[in-house]
């Protein structure tokens, strides 16, 4: 079994595997998104306090979850590349960063859109909001570092160190921000909704979360494939592959 795993750590085999798997991921996520959206926008009852605007939860919560999950994926891939020199880890970490940053930005934007009708303000210096914003800064720092280093392998190693430092820092940032906002402005922390959520609202939420997760993996596979082609552009197999296909611009 171990031997077969090794095989997929090779970029060429992973590229082939990804080509086979990613359409299934896209298909599955489309089905799940459809089910989740029908359930969330159509079947779930209107919230008695928040009216219809609570429905943004079906985009907001999955993207907030994924913003953190993507960082863990990025740091794990970085650790693999740093410790065991797995090239696949380097490629995945690099492909993951813009995705994670996008989900973080999506969570912040949908949160602001939700906050305006509910809290009366786009932004509050609440602990969760602030640590999400700092997570975005961590992503942007990582992306900027990757962009500044020309040599891909050196960039991957430096990025892996930064991602791991970020993993140590995220809990520290989260709890320090929580401490800070409870000290300064307890009144602005408006707990939304009751602690429990009705089942008819929860099921679409879980569907949407699962759909987003699968969508994340699908896009990650595509992005990784693109990174692999750029990374291995001087190898025979990429030249053969690109010579065969009709899209030589991908690796320009």
């Amino acid at each position: 079994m171990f031997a077969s795993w090794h095989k997929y750590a090779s970029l060429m085999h992973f590229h082939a595997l990804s080509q086979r798997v990613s359409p299934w991921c896209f298909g599955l996520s489309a089905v799940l998104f459809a089910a989740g959206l029908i359930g969330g926008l159509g079947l779930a009852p209107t919230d008695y306090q928040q009216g219809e605007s609570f429905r943004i939860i079906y985009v907001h919560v999955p993207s907030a979850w994924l913003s953190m999950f993507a960082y863990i994926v990025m740091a794990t891939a970085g650790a693999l590349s740093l410790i065991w020199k797995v090239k696949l880890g380097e490629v995945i970490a690099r492909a993951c960063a813009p995705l994670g940053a996008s989900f973080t930005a999506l969570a912040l934007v949908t949160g602001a859109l939700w906050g305006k009708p509910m809290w009366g303000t786009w932004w509050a210096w609440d602990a969760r909001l602030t640590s999400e914003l700092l997570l975005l800064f961590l992503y942007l720092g990582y992306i900027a570092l990757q962009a500044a280093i020309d040599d891909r392998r050196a960039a991957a190693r430096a990025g892996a160190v930064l991602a791991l430092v970020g993993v140590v820092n995220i809990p520290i940032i989260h709890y320090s921000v929580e401490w800070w906002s409870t000290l300064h402005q307890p009144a602005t922390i408006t707990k939304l909704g009751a602690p429990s959520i009705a089942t008819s609202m929860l099921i679409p939420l879980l569907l949407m979360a699962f759909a987003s997760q699968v969508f994340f993996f699908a896009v990650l596979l595509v992005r990784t494939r693109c990174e692999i082609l750029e990374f291995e552009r001087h190898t025979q197999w990429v030249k053969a592959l690109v010579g065969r296909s009709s899209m030589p611009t991908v690796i320009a």
Partner: protein
Amino acid sequence: MNFMRAAAAILQRDIRRLLRRRGQWTQPLMFFVMVVVLFPFALGSGEITASIVPAVVWTAMLLATTLSLEEIFRSDFDDGSLDQLALSPHPLPLLLLAKAIAHWLTALLPLILMAGALARALNLAPTPLWTLLVTLLLGTPVFSLVGTLASALTIGLRGGALLLALIVMPLYIPVLIFGAGAVNNAALGLPTSGEMFFLAGLAVLAATLAPFAAAAGLRSRLS
């Protein structure tokens, strides 16, 4: 204890070098004073209320530190002695710890003394003033240690200084929160031990982990 002697030699050399090049420690100091002086102008009335002094001092401290970080490795990288450092048989994390200590002693200790004087001039009462100095002493080692790490990651890059600031500022925010928070509490007569313990904990964590991460980062940039 050969490696301890090597670390002590690096500490001594860095301190001597920074003291000889006067601009390296006077410029962050001047920058720090100027940032603090900007606030009265921006606030209009020309009068800073005591309640924003901790925020002003800590923010200016963070910015001045960020600007001083690039110098930790710059000249060593330019003349090649950084390669020798990485090739030496002594443990690299220990040598980088010595460099971080040298940075703190030469760049940040003058800033702390100046911060005390400036905060007094801005009418911060004696009790919060002492709290400010203690939080600066506990918090700024984290700045040096994490800054050494971030500086190692950005050695020799185009636009390195700005990139360094982007990377390092989110990592500094916990220190800023607890440092300024403790002073605010002291001004209100509230206990500050919670923030102090947290700052001390962050300093210990940074001292134990950051040199290793800095060594890994440095090797990634040099190889």
